[in-house]
């Protein structure tokens, strides 16, 4: 997975609460058997009109926001279906971090496995960030656990193991196989009733 240490980027604001994974990536796109190519379908129902043309009023489609790497959103982002495809769509589009009021547990875990940094900030901080102009940038510093915008510095919390994983860009399976002997020992003593 791609490491995440620091990111300076432009941001898009989609302030709604309860953006579930059906909205992030509708189910018709779950049929791919690859992990790539979902970016064009991100927020599909909001991004495109019924005739397939771009919905020009949607934030993601505004020319000034092209190339943005940080998404600023509301509470309870990523609820609903466990589809990791929602995270792949966000990263494939080019997002490196999502700043919200809260994330569903499954979405949060999925993000930690794909280098998409989920940042929880309280409403008073996000209110300030929502004022960002298209040509302004936000700095995210993971080692320092800070989000910097203009003169404001906001601190965020993250579990130390997830933090390390982001910074090192580690593959989980290789890491786990370091414990192979412990796993094998555990298997020997598991209850087995036939």
């Amino acid at each position, binding site marked *: 997975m791609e490491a995440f240490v620091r990111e300076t980027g432009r941001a898009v604001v989609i302030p709604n*609460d*309860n953006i*579930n994974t*059906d*909205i992030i990536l*509708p*189910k*018709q796109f*779950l*049929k*791919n*058997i*690859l*992990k790539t190519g979902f970016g064009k379908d991100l927020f599909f*129902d909001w991004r495109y009109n019924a005739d397939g043309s771009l919905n020009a009023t949607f934030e993601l489609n505004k020319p000034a926001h092209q190339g943005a790497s940080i998404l600023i959103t509301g*509470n*309870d982002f990523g*609820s*609903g*279906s*466990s*589809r*990791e*495809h929602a*995270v792949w769509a966000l990263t494939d589009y080019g997002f490196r971090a999502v700043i919200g009021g*809260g994330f*569903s*547990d*499954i979405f949060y*875990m*999925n993000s930690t*496995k*794909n280098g998409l940094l989920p940042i929880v900030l309280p409403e008073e901080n996000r209110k300030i960030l929502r004022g960002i102009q298209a040509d302004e940038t936000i700095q995210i510093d993971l080692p320092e656990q800070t989000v910097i915008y203009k003169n404001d510095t906001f601190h965020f919390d993250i*579990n*130390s*193991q*997830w933090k390390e994983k982001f910074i090192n860009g580690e593959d*989980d*399976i290789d890491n*786990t*196989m370091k*414990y192979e002997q*412990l*796993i094998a020992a*555990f*298997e020997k003593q*598991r*209850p087995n*009733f*036939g």
Partner: protein
Amino acid sequence: MSKTLFDKIWEKHVITGGIGEAQLIYVDLHLVHEVTSPQPFDGLRNTNRRVRRPDLTFATMDHNVPTKDIFNVQDQMSRLQMDTLVKNTKEFNVPLASIGDDKQGIVHVVGPERGLTQPAKVIVCGDSHTATHGAFGAIAFGIGTSEVEHVLATQTIWQVKPKTMGIKVTGKLPTNTYAKDIIMGIIAKYGVSFGVGYAIEFYGETVQNLSMEARMTMCNMSIEAGSRTGMVQPDQTTFDYVEGREQAPKDFGAAKSYWSQFYTDDESDFDETLTFDVSNLKPMVTWGTNPGMATPVDQFLPEIKDDNDANAYDYIGLHPNMKPVDINLDYIFIGSCTNSRYEDLEIAANMMKGHHLAPNVTAWIVPGSRAIRNRAIKSGIAKIFEDAGCEWREPGCSACLAMNPDKIPAGKHVASTSNRNFIGRQGVGSRTHLASPAMVAAAGIAGHFVDITTDEFV
């Protein structure tokens, strides 16, 4: 030390890692389906890894399955996912119940039915409704696709232990209200995210009196409250359900005595507790676009409080001075991992017996598994549905998520026994109203919702 059911099972599964950090947890049962497994198997292939424990892994097909003509998969991408699962399970020696197989069905229906789901296990699946299996007193939760690959390769998963929440359910369940109404009532009262970060245990006499099927319905919808895990303490009802099933432990006595040590010592062991009294519970119906937007059937729909409400009303085509009885229905759907078990179908059939669907109502009855389908045909339940004018379908996820040909057309109202009323969930522009199987069946006959707790029905 006094502990919760969740704590006790968790501790038995920790391989390494300390409290408060991610711990490596052993997985006793990994359920696999065609939608969230292609990338993980591909990942194993690319890294020359194997499935560590095919014997603790079980695969079936459900999300894409056509329920009308089960072998006739028209959608090329659906076919590709299903064919890919056949190829992958063969290559990696994982047992598969494919379409047509006696064991095929919705993964969360088939696991318990085969006896694979057992108390005190850790059970995972790349699907958020894995919480269903917690009804057996197991720790069961949905995982993402990278985690599926990790479990296939290592039979373990890294998790930070969640906090625990006890939901005590009290009171006698009124006639014609069900587990579905309890869980919908809880979510309507406390919202769609109160469970985030918590493993929920449902307990109390009301829960003890529920069947396994009813407990599964409650645990299934824990995720609609934000909790990955819902569970119920295993008891005699649980043991009776598991005993004699194909994959039940051969030394059942030993298993039972092992399982009997798993219970919450004291209510004060939970990090949080809530209580919910069902004595005056009414059948619940959703009016909006998340499962928390629900109301008792005899109440007016709520006033508009914010943009979320306004948007929901706009999408669903209703307004606050209506009641659920005023919602005219075009479709009814009885199925899904929430409510497609034999008991659910039996309850619905009893409501429909001797009646016919209202004109203009289309009804899809989709049993959760091949075994349930066969049993319902044998017992005559299937015929009750057919005589009422319903379409009696093949097992699969069907219109719960409409990834298959079963899609509710735009603008149409559907009374559904499923779990999510999200925008577009049951088809682009579809308008979903979640309710219990009894409510949905009665609504199909009337053409609109009816209060099945009134004298006419009890």
